[in-house]
């Protein structure tokens, strides 16, 4: 409270006449105490000095005294530190803030507060990111990706449509037109046991052209070993163990675990052995036989092998060097032959 000297004199007169309440008397005394230039008026107010009047609302003044800062109640640190940091962080309640201001009268407290204020970090504006231009984008990501996805999607759809849907449709149409006995379905293969008496071309088609010629791979040992080479002639009676279709080739496993791969073939589904035999197929015409990368320098051996094959199968055999190695591990390839379904009486 700030009074003028005139107001002070009025208060003193009231005090001497006993017209001031105890709280007004305390205020008057405190004012004089805070303004020593008016201390001579205390001589007119001996009763204030002598009577030691207690401020009646002293308890009210201490109502803000606290024991802890609620925000940091879980910490065991000193109350002063909690008050200072709490004030810095804006975490003090009203009571705590009032108590904090009371504490601010202490020099030690203020020194500690200054020390803590020094820990407040200032933005270092000298640190600037210089590569912002690299981060900027001009086109919406959605659009840029959309074109990519659309093109990829279109390509995928086209691919699938081309290699599955169209081919199936195409072949179905052709089958219907030609009434060919291709092994395209299990039922057809089942039925093929019966129509041995029929003579039908084993027709295979690629997506774009009709193919009647196959490449038949025969395991090396079949040809090399005389006893196995006989198998070539036996093939007609060997039961099929399995027929596995891989897009453009068919792997035929015989009961003797020899494997013959015909390629390229458009589609033959997998079947179990009892539905057909290799007897269904007969090699009709052989254009050439390739001996892979297995160079046979021994002309006599080659002649023997080719003659055996020719004798057993009626195939003409040619020899070609430097053919790529077949990944399936077969070294000899009877290439480009045509097959047809064997007549039952053959």
């Amino acid at each position: 409270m700030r009074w003028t000297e005139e107001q002070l004199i009025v208060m003193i007169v009231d005090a001497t006449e006993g017209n001031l309440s105890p709280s007004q008397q305390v205020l008057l005394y405190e004012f004089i105490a805070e303004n020593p230039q008016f201390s001579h008026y205390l001589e007119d107010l001996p009763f204030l000095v002598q009577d030691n009047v207690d401020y009646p609302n002293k308890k009210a003044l201490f109502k803000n005294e606290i024991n802890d800062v609620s925000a940091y109640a879980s910490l065991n640190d000193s109350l002063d530190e909690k008050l200072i940091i709490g004030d810095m962080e804006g975490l003090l309640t009203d009571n705590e803030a009032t108590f904090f201001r009371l504490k601010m009268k202490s020099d030690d407290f203020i020194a500690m507060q200054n020390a803590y204020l020094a820990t407040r970090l200032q933005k270092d504006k000298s640190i600037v990111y210089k590569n912002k231009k690299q981060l900027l984008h001009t086109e919406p990501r959605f659009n840029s990706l959309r074109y990519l996805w659309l093109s990829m999607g279109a390509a995928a759809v086209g691919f699938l449509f081309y290699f599955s849907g169209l081919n199936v449709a195409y072949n179905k149409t052709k089958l219907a037109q030609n009434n060919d006995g291709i092994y395209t379905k299990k039922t057809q293969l089942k039925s093929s046991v019966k129509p041995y008496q029929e003579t039908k071309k084993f027709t295979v088609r690629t997506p774009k052209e009709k193919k009647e010629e196959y490449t038949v791979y025969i395991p090396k040992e079949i040809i090399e070993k005389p006893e196995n080479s006989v198998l070539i002639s036996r093939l007609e009676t060997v039961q099929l163990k399995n027929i596995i279709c891989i897009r453009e080739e068919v792997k035929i496993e015989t009961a003797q675990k020899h494997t013959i791969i015909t390629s390229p073939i458009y589609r033959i589904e997998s079947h179990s052995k009892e539905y057909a035999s290799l007897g269904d197929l007969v090699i009709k015409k052989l254009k050439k036989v390739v001996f892979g990368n297995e160079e046979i320098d021994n002309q006599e051996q080659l002649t023997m092998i080719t003659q055996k094959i020719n004798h057993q199968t009626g195939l003409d055999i040619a020899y070609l060097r430097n053919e790529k190695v077949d990944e399936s591990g077969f070294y000899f390839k009877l290439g480009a032959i045509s097959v047809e379904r064997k007549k039952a009486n053959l």
Partner: protein
Amino acid sequence: MTVEEYNSCVHELADSLYRFAVKTTGNKAVADDFVQDAYERLWKKVDNIEFIKAKSYLFKTVVNLQIDAVRRMKLRNTHVSSTSSPIVEQGAPFDLKIKLDEGIRQLSDVQKNCLLLRDYEGYSYQEIAEILAISEDQVKVNIFRARKFLKSFIGNIEVLV
């Protein structure tokens, strides 16, 4: 978020993000990588992130990158910041800047992140908690501990100033 909003994020936040990354890692090259990674991730999710959450996302990403980097470094028995030159705190008296910077680098990662996000970016406790994936109480305690450590670390301020 539109492209314009994304670009405004670059203009407005790149410096802050970079500053934060520099201070947390203590290495400008690493910080540069973090910022680029953060924006790259933001761009990948630009359709899914709201503009108002971009800042939080960016800082969160940098924090996560920092955590990953620290884990990798720990595997190599070194620390990101320990391999870097000290970054001097600007805007304060020189001795105090150096001292503060040293102090910051000695803070734990969580304390450092909390303090930097609080003082540099003015994030609320809730936002810091969200970015660092910890509770608000933990944020309060970490900042308290960080300030107390820094105060004791810088020692007599009058001597420094």
